[in-house]
Each structure stands twice: as structure tokens, then as C-alpha cells.
């Protein structure tokens, strides 16, 4: 917080952001300045510390459409929208229409016919929110699509780091774990490299996607080397639901080589912080004691920042749309 007060730029972004698109579908392709503004605006909301009480989005209808289980992301979006005065309806489509055989586009156009302002979509298939954006005329936020992207998570991670460390450029950030199956990793890679951080990816070779280095990161299959001198150690959940059984011999073997424990963390920068998008598998990717170490673990802050970041995005999309209408 003290770091933040020093930040002179803060004042400039205490007004809504205008984005270049009606949607937030992916971090890849976003301009650095846009990311920066969203983070600054989210920082402003975080400082308000729940006392928003704004009605700027009164009458604005948000549909939270989740085709996959989620608790934290859904609640976080809902709180964000409500704090801005919007109406939120949660729709869980994990079982209903899909089981009845309705196609995704039919579901989408049904929802569209109810004329919402914003659709927040989580879907197990990569690229599904892009399909929504192609066919619907409301704004779309990608709340996680398959293995592709989870843009709001990357933005909230960036805000969390920024509030703790003060800056992103030049930071050594190690993203460790199941990179192949992680949309969080992809969004973070795009965001952090765009913002000038030095990003390293650490994963067993079976969970490292091919040609990842072409995304501007360094790849390590040895965790000790991968987190050496790191300022931030970002852990990923081992996504058992996306695994096929041949990626990893066992959880205990995974923890031995790729779980974060005191010994491995000792190789990082002494002030290094630990992050995890949750939910955590304690004793698999992170030693339980480290997860609870409030001096080093930012895991709870991440959750808190999630609301602020999503407020900034929802507000920005509304602002962008209103501006487009005027023009």
C-alpha cells in the first residue's frame, strides 16, 4: 500500500477506461498501454476497499454463463458487477441444455435474445468465447476457455504483483507446473512478457507445450534452475481433470521434483513472493506451510484483487460501448 501511494500515475486513471474492443477475449494481442490502464483503474477500485457504492451500471445486465464448475471466478465476477450497481444472473450450463442436445450457438442466441449487456463465459473448449463474440451483439468476457486463456486472472495477478513489488518490468517471474493444460499460464505469459517481465516456465517435459519458447519465455524442466533468483514464483494447479494418466508417474513424485518447498524456494530471491491461481493441491504443487505463510504467499491477495480487476474491466466494457454508441 505504501508503494502505491508513491505512484503518481494513479490519479490519471481514476476514470473509466476506453478499450479498443467490445470484448475481453484474450490477453494475446492486447496493447501494453491498455493493460496498464486496466491495472491502474483496478488499483483505484482496490483502494476504495469495498466502499464503492456506485450506481454507474444501474440497469446494466450481466449474465454469468458457466459451462464449467467454478466458485471463485463466478463469485468474483458477481461481486464486481454488483459493486458497480449492475444486475447479475448466474447461469450454470454444465448439465442443462448441453445434455438436452442444444448446440452452443443456440444456447448463445437464446441468451442473446434476453438482451443482456454483458456475457461472462467460461467454457471447457478453447476458443468458445470467440464464437460467442462472433454471433452475439453484447460484450463478452472470457472467464476461462479450455487451455487457451484466462485473461482476468492474468490481470489480477499483475495487479497483485504491482501492489506488492511496485512494478512488473524486469521482474523475474517463474510460472511452475502444468503449463500444457493451463489457460492461466498462457494469459500470464502474454501479459507479463508484454509488460517487460522476464518470464520463465517450469514444468515436467510432459507438461510443457511445444515451442513455448516462441512466446518469449525461457523453459526449464529443472525447477531449481527455473526459480533461481526469481522475484515471483507462480504455481499452477496440476489439472487432474485434463490429464490422461501418462503425464506424471505420481503426485508424490511430482511434489519431489516440481512441488514448491522451503529448499527450492531458498534458491529464489530472498524476498520472492508465492502466487497460485487456486484451487490449490496442498502437498502436490506447494508445501502446505508455504501456502499459509502470510509473509510470502499472496494467494489471498490474488482473490481480493480479482474483484477490483473485474470491476475495472466491466466498467471499461460499458464505457467502451457507450462511447461507440455516441460515435
Amino acid at each position, binding site marked *: 500500500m505504501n508503494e502505491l501511494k508513491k505512484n503518481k500515475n494513479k490519479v490519471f486513471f481514476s476514470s473509466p477506461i476506453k478499450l479498443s474492443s467490445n470484448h475481453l477475449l484474450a490477453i494475446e494481442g492486447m496493447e501494453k498501454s491498455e493493460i496498464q490502464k486496466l491495472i491502474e483503474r483496478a488499483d483505484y477500485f482496490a483502494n476504495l476497499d469495498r466502499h464503492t457504492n456506485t450506481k454507474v451500471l444501474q440497469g446494466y445486465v450481466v449474465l454469468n454463463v458457466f459451462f464449467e464448475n467454478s466458485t471463485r471466478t463466478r463469485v468474483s465476477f458477481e461481486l464486481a458487477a454488483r459493486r458497480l450497481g449492475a444486475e447479475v444472473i448466474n447461469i450454470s450450463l454444465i448439465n442443462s441444455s448441453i445434455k438436452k442436445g442444444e448446440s452452443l*450457438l443456440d444456447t448463445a442466441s437464446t441468451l442473446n435474445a434476453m438482451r443482456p449487456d454483458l456475457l461472462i463465459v467460461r467454457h471447457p473448449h478453447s476458443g468458445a468465447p470467440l464464437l460467442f463474440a462472433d454471433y452475439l451483439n453484447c460484450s463478452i468476457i472470457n472467464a476461462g476457455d479450455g487451455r487457451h486463456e484466462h485473461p482476468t486472472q492474468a490481470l489480477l495477478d499483475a495487479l497483485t504483483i504491482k501492489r506488492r513489488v511496485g512494478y512488473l518490468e524486469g521482474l523475474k517471474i517463474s510460472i511452475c507446473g502444468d503449463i500444457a493444460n493451463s489457460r492461466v499460464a498462457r494469459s500470464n505469459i502474454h501479459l507479463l512478457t508484454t509488460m517487460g517481465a522476464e518470464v520463465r516456465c517450469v514444468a515436467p517435459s510432459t507438461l510443457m507445450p*511445444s*515451442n*513455448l519458447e516462441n512466446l518469449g519465455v525461457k523453459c526449464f524442466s529443472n525447477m531449481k534452475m527455473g526459480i533461481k533468483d526469481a522475484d515471483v514464483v507462480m504455481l499452477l494447479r496440476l489439472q487432474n481433470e485434463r490429464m490422461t494418466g501418462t503425464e506424471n508417474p505420481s503426485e508424490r513424485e511430482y511434489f519431489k521434483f516440481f512441488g514448491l518447498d522451503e529448499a527450492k524456494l531458498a534458491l529464489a530471491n530472498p524476498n520472492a513472493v508465492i502466487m497460485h491461481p487456486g484451487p490449490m493441491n496442498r502437498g502436490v504443487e506447494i508445501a502446505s506451510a508455504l501456502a499459509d505463510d502470510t509473509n510470502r504467499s499472496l494467494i489471498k491477495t490474488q482473490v481480493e484483487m480479482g474483484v477490483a480487476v473485474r470491476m475495472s474491466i466491466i466498467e471499461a466494457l460499458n464505457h467502451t460501448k457507450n462511447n461507440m454508441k455516441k460515435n
Partner: protein
Amino acid sequence: MTFTVLKSIKVLNPKTYFNDISDVVICNDKIFSICKDFKTEVSHQDGQINIYDCNGLTMSPGLIDMRVNIGKTENLTAIQKIAAENGITSMVILPNQTPKLNNPSIIDHIKRQSETPNLTKVNIYGAATKDDHGLEMSEIGLMSEMGAIGFTNGNKSIKNSLVMRRLMSYAAMINRPIIQHAEDEDLSGLNKASTTLINGEMNEGEISTRLGLIGIPSCAEVIIVERDIRLAKLTGASYHVAHISTRDSINVIREAKKIGLKVTCDTAPPYFALNETSLLSYNTAFKLSPPLRKEDDRLAVIEGIQDGTIDAIASDHRARSKDTKAQPFSAASVGASGIETLFLMTLELVHKKIIDLNKAISLLTINPANVLKMEKPSLEKDGLADFIIFDENCHDVINQNNLKTSPTPFDQRKIKGKILGTFINGQLAHINQMLKNRIIK
């Protein structure tokens, strides 16, 4: 008797390398004459005569499309008609349709049902194994007697090495080729019986990493090709790899040909005209099997076409309904339409100066006939009048809205060339307005 006279047409006959401007006369189902200056009076005594001014146009034997999938919702007669409109006078259909083409009676039935004088001729690949598990050999001898011209498991690889060995050995005995869709199903994740179920969606590499789609490594193709070539050597079989798509496989086939094995392969337009970057917008029209590969693989396909390693070009037609394609990429169906763009996309290789016109026509006519041991298409006196008339240089744009099958991976592509007429058994199977306007009499 009806005579059709094509005045001053460029005759392109890859069988004899004949390439000259002549007058061509068709009578009944045969070519009556190819000569420099046909006197219409000669044959005018009895019967009707149609004369076309074909100045600036080209004729070649009708195209043979050696790989067409007939989808669940497609009607064979309708596809025959569309194929004829696009210059295909003979096509080979795959056995993996419903019901499966895996016994002699169904082969016979489809052969008879599809025999219509002015529609594209239908040839059939029989199913190499009785069911999807690929473990029991079908009655390939009996199917062969009924007219099956080769054996394959369609869009599934013949996986079991022992089954493949025996199939090759048996097929060699009856002098029929085995056609393989070369893909290691465990690597590509298509082996549903496997406990390690993944579901390969596109070529593995940087693009699959960016898109978060599951990659199929390109070696999944060559692993099967290499194994099969060893079995072809062991058995002396004629072995043909369908829709080849990677540099490694093409290299392996080049070497096999050098040592004299009876190994051949074909490719399809997407593999020489597109690469994996087309998928960057998750456009499901580009979800194909094999998947679109890297640019280096595309260049290898072109080199393979140029040096003759790749024998033929097939449409690999696998049309899909809009409903199954308007889905998230992972859930969308695999395949794209092809019969309407086969000729145009092959002609693009000529316009890009990659191959000459004679070679392009060979890849679509005489070469597939050689691979499948079919009668060699030719334009010569007393030969069967299966041919096409086209304009090489007519500018056009491929537009999905004007096509009868979907999805095309070539929507909005600028092309040059147009089929103006198709004759099958001497009968007019297709004529467009441009050719109608050229009727003199």
C-alpha cells in the same frame, strides 16, 4: 446419330503428351475424330450436329478424384452431379459411410445404383477390415470381383501390424492396392479404446500452444508410413498413402520409390495451399484430418508434387453440415468440402508456375488411374469420350455462398480457371452458360 464438334480447341492428352489445337468430334460415347480442320459436311448426312466454337479453350480427359467421403447426410447421386459440374468424371468413394462398404453385395448394389450415363462414375474402395476394430480381414477377393478397386479403412489407420501384413499379402495376390490413412492413433489421440485418451485437434507446435488446442505431432504420420513400407517390401504389395501431409513422410516415400517398391501417395489441395496458421482464428473450416501442417511441410508437399514423389491430387472431399462446424473448435466435426475446388486449386499450381498444365492434368487423370490400376484416360480416336472443357485463365473468386457443399477451406480465394463443360460417355453431363454461348449450330 448425334455429332458434337469442338472447333479449334486445345487438346491436352497426358497419356500421349499430345498438346495441340484441333477440331474434336464426338459421336455416341466415342471420340470420332481429332483432326486439324473437320469438314462438318462429312458427317452431316443423317442425325443432329452440335458445333461449339472452342477457340481459347482447353480440353483434357475427365478428372479422377481418388478420395471422396460420402457423408451421412449426403446423397450419392447429388454428389455425382456436383462432381460432374466440377470436371470429375470418375470418383472413388471411401467405405466408411453408413452402412459400411465391407461386403460384396453392398459394393455391387452401389455400383449398380450409381450407374447413370451422364453422371460421374463411381468407383469404390472396399473396407479392408470387417469392423472399426480393424482386426478381421473383409472378403476383399469377393469385393474385388464386384468391382472394388482398392482397400482401405477410410479415415482410420489400419493399425495392427499383423493385420496390415496379411492384408497387403492378400491384396498383392489379387493385384489390388491397399490405401492407408497414415496416422498413429495413440499419438493423435484418436484411439478411443486407449486409456490415455487425448483428442488431437490440430498440428502440434507453436500455434497449438498459443491456441490451447491439443496437438498431433507430425511424426504420427511417418511412423505408420515407415512401418507400412517395410511391410510392403516384405509382401510385394501395392501400397498407397492417402492425403500425405508431412516432409518426413514424403522423404520416406521418395526413398521407397528409389529402391523400386510399389509405393505411391496422393495429397489434397489444403496440404499444398494452406498451413496451420489458418487456424489462428479457430475457424473450424480448417479442422481437417490430417491436420494442416507447418509451412515447411507445405513446401515439402509442393516439392513432392514437382519431383513426382506425390503421384496424384485428390479432393479428400469430406463435406460437413454447418451445424457440426458452427461449434467450438474442439467440438466441431473434422473435414471440409473438396470436389468443387479440386480442379481450381490444382490449376493454381500452374498459375503459380509450380508445375505445367500437362503435369497438373496428369496428377488428376492418368496418375490416379495408374495407382488404382484403372483404364488410362486418354483423348484419342475411338477412345471413350470422358473429358472436360475449361478456360485456363478466367478470373474468379471461390465463394462459399455459391458452392453446394461446405465448408470450403478456400472461401474468398482468388483463382483463375473455370470448367465450362463435362462430357461423360460422350454425353453432356454439365455445360455452363459461357459454353452455351459458343454454340455455332
